[in-house]
C-alpha cells in the first residue's frame, strides 16, 4: 500500500489531537574518546609513539626535538595560565572565564602553523591561540574582568578580539580572505569555530561564500564534543568534517590532542589557501575537560567516567612521553618551561588585579568614529548629573 493511501486527506490543524509520536533519540557520535585505531590524522599516539604517515610527515619534517619542546612549552604555559584564570574567577576577580583545558594541542598546533601576516578570527575560548599570536597577559583577561569589551589590539597580533556570537566570525574570516585575494596578498585567514557553531547559519554561509570565491580561509573546528550541555551527536549524525565536501571544500579530521598532527594538517590547509586553491575545513577532535565556562556545571550532563577516558589521551602527556623516550627534555629545560608558565600565570594575575575600572563617562566613547551630537548631549547630561552628587558630597 502506498503511504498516501493511509494518510489523512488533509493536514491536521494545530488544535486537533495529533496523538503521540515516538520521540527520536540522537544516534550521532557520542563523546567517547577516539582510539588510535580510528581514521583521524595522528602523528603521535596517546602513549607517545611517533607514528608514520607519509602524507602528513612532510609537513612537519622540520620539527626537530627542540621545535617539539617549543610546542610542548606553549601547551604548558597555556594550560597554566588557563588554570590561573579559572582561579581568578573562583576568587571573584574575573566575572567569567571559558576554560580551554584539554584543547591545548588543537590551539597551539594550529596557531603555530600561521605567519605573522595571517589573520585569526576566533571565538571566546581561543586564549591559547591568542597566547601564540603574542597577546599580552593582561589583555587576555580584560573582557572577563569586565573592564573592556575586547582585550588586545587586533592589528598588533593579527587576531580579531573574541567573538561571543557563536559562529559569526566565520563570515568575517571569509570576507578578510576575499580581501587578501583582492589585494593580491598571499596572507590567509583562519576561522576558529566549535562543534556547536557548525549548526549556525553563519558558518554554513561562510562555507558557501568561501567556496564560491575560492577564498584563502581555513575553517578550524575544535570539536570538543560539547556545546555547553549538548553533545555533538545532537547536532550531527556524521562527523563534522563530512559536511565540507558538500560545499566543495576538503574536510580533514585530525586528532585534536596531537599537537604535531594538528600542526601538520593546518600547515597543509594554510599552504593550500596560500597557493590560491581555496578553503579547507579541519575538524580537530578533542575534548573540553572543564566546564563550558566557570558558570557551567558539567556534572549535570557529562557521564562521570568520560573525562577520565579522555585524560588518558591528554595532549601534554603524549608529547612528554615522546620527548622522554627520546631523552629530548632535559631537567633544566623542563624547569625553564615550568618557570615560564609560572611567570606568565603570575603576569596574568597581576595584570588582572591591576586593571582599573574605566571612568564613568568613557562609556560614551567610540560609539561612532565621528561623535553623534545625540550621544554627546547624553554624555553632557550625565556628566552634569554626576557633578550634582559631587556638589552634595562637598
Amino acid at each position, binding site marked *: 500500500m502506498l503511504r498516501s493511501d493511509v494518510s489523512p486527506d488533509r493536514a491536521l490543524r494545530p488544535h486537533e489531537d495529533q496523538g503521540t509520536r515516538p520521540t527520536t533519540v540522537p544516534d550521532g557520535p557520542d563523546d567517547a574518546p577516539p582510539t588510535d585505531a580510528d581514521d583521524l590524522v595522528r602523528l603521535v599516539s596517546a602513549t607517545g609513539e611517533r607514528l608514520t604517515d607519509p602524507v602528513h610527515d612532510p609537513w612537519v619534517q622540520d620539527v626537530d626535538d627542540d621545535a617539539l619542546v617549543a610546542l610542548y612549552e606553549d601547551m604548558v604555559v597555556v594550560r597554566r595560565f588557563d588554570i590561573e584564570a579559572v582561579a581568578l574567577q573562583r576568587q571573584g576577580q574575573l566575572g567569567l572565564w571559558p576554560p580551554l583545558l584539554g584543547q591545548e594541542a588543537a590551539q597551539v598546533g594550529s596557531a603555530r602553523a600561521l605567519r605573522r601576516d595571517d589573520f585569526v578570527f576566533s571565538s571566546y575560548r581561543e586564549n591559547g591561540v591568542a597566547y601564540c599570536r603574542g597577546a599580552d597577559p593582561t589583555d587576555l583577561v580584560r573582557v572577563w574582568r569586565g573592564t573592556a569589551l575586547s582585550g588586545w589590539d587586533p592589528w598588533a597580533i593579527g587576531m580579531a578580539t573574541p567573538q561571543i556570537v557563536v559562529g*559569526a566570525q566565520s*563570515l568575517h574570516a571569509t570576507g578578510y580572505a576575499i580581501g587578501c585575494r583582492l589585494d593580491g596578498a598571499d596572507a590567509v585567514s583562519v576561522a576558529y569555530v566549535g562543534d556547536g557553531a557548525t549548526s549556525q547559519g553563519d558558518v554554513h554561509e561562510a562555507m558557501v561564500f568561501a567556496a564560491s570565491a575560492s577564498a584563502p580561509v581555513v575553517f578550524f573546528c575544535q570539536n570538543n564534543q560539547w556545546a555547553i550541555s549538548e553533545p555533538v551527536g545532537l547536532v550531527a549524525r556524521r562527523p563534522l568534517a563530512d559536511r565540507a565536501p558538500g560545499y566543495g571544500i576538503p574536510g580533514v579530521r585530525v586528532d585534536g590532542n596531537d599537537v604535531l598532527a594538528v600542526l601538520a594538517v593546518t600547515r597543509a590547509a594554510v599552504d593550500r589557501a596560500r597557493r590560491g586553491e581555496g578553503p579547507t575545513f579541519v575538524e580537530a577532535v578533542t575534548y573540553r575537560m572543564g566546564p563550558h565556562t566557570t558558570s557551567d556545571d558539567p556534572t549535570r550532563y557529562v557521564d562521570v567516567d568520560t573525562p577520565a577516558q579522555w585524560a588518558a589521551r591528554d595532549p601534554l602527556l603524549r608529547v612528554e612521553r615522546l620527548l622522554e623516550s627520546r631523552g629530548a627534555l632535559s631537567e633544566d629545560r623542563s624547569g625553564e618551561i615550568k618557570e615560564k608558565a609560572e611567570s606568565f600565570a603570575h603576569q596574568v594575575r597581576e595584570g588582572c588585579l591591576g586593571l582599573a575600572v574605566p571612568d564613568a563617562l568613557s562609556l560614551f566613547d567610540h560609539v561612532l568614529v565621528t561623535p553623534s551630537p545625540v550621544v554627546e548631549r547624553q554624555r553632557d547630561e550625565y556628566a552634569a548629573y554626576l557633578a550634582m552628587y559631587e556638589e552634595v558630597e562637598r
Partner: protein
Amino acid sequence: MTELTLARALNAGLRRALEDDPRVVLLGEDIGRLGGVFRVTDGLQADFGPERVRDTPLAEAGIMGVAVGLAYRGFRPVVEIQFDGFVYPAFDQLVTQVARLHYRTGGLVRMPITVRIPYGGGIGAVEHHSESPEAYFAHTPGLRVVTCGGPQDAHTMLRQAVASDDPVVFLEPKRRYWVKGEVDDSPADALPLDRARVVVPGTDVTVAAYGPLVLTARDAALAAADEGVSVEVVDLRSLAPLDLDTLEASVRRTGRLVVTHEAQRSGGLGAEVAASITERCFDVLHAPVARVTGFDVPYPPAKVEEHFLPGLDRLLDAVDRVMGRPHSLTGLTRAADPPAVAGVAAGFASGRAS
C-alpha cells in the same frame, strides 16, 4: 547639472565612489550582470570588474558578515540588500557586529560599510517588498541611518555614506526611484550627512518627513498654502543621529509639529521625534505633536496599501488638527489626537487623491 532619476543619481554616486577610492567594493545579489533589480548598479560591473562589483550567493547574513571581513582588511564595502523585507537575515551581523566593532575595540576597528536598502511601499508589491524597517536600525547605537527625498540628495548622500568611516544604513525610497531632478556633482549647498534640511520654508506648522514622504509633504505644503496655512517642511535626512537642532529651530518658528513616516507608529521614529521636540520645545508648542504614520499592522496586501500609507489628505488632516482648524474639506472639527481610524475615514471622505 544633469537631470537624472533618483535611481540614476544613485548609480552615478556609486560610480563616483568607485572611481574616487580603489578600496570601495560593491556586494549584493544580482548587482553585477543584471545591474540590480532596480538597475541602481547598472553598468558598474562592466566598468569596474567582477572583483569590485561582486554578485554574491543569496544569503544576506553572509553578505553582511563578509563585508565585515572586508572592512577588517581595509576595504570600504557597499552592500546592496535587494529589498527591505530581506534585511532581517543580515540583522544579526548588522546589530551584533557592524554597529559595535568600533565601540567593542575602543576605536581600533572601523566598519566603513554602507548598507543600501530599497525601502517603503507604494509599488504594489507582494509581501516583504514594501517595509520600512528604519526604527530597528535607528534604535541600534553605532549605526548611522539616512534616507534621501530626491535625486540630488540621493547622489550626494550616497557618496558621503560611502566615504563615512562609520557604518551607514542607506535607505532608498524605492517608489521614488523614477522621480527626476537636477543633479550637481558637487552642489554648493551640500549638507553634512547627519543634517536635516528645511526644504519648504513656512511659518504656521512644521511637517517633518523623510524618504518617500518628503515629496508628499511638499505637496501638502502647496495644498495648505492654497488654504492659507503656511507649512514648513523639514526633510530629516538623518534618522540616526537625528538632527534635532534643525528641527527644534523650525518648531520654535512655527510652534506646531506634524511628523510623518510610512513605518508603523508604535516605537517608530515619529515617537522619538515627538518626545524629543516636546522635551525641547514644550514652551512654544501650541498643540501636541501629531503623527501621521502607517498603522500598527503588518504591511497589508497591495490593493489596500493606500489605506496604510500616509498620503496628502492624512497629512493635511493632521495640519488642520494641530492648527485647531475645522477640516478644510469636511468642515468637521476633531479632537487634537483622535483614533487613527477616524483620521483615515475623514481622509477618504474628502475624496482627495494622495
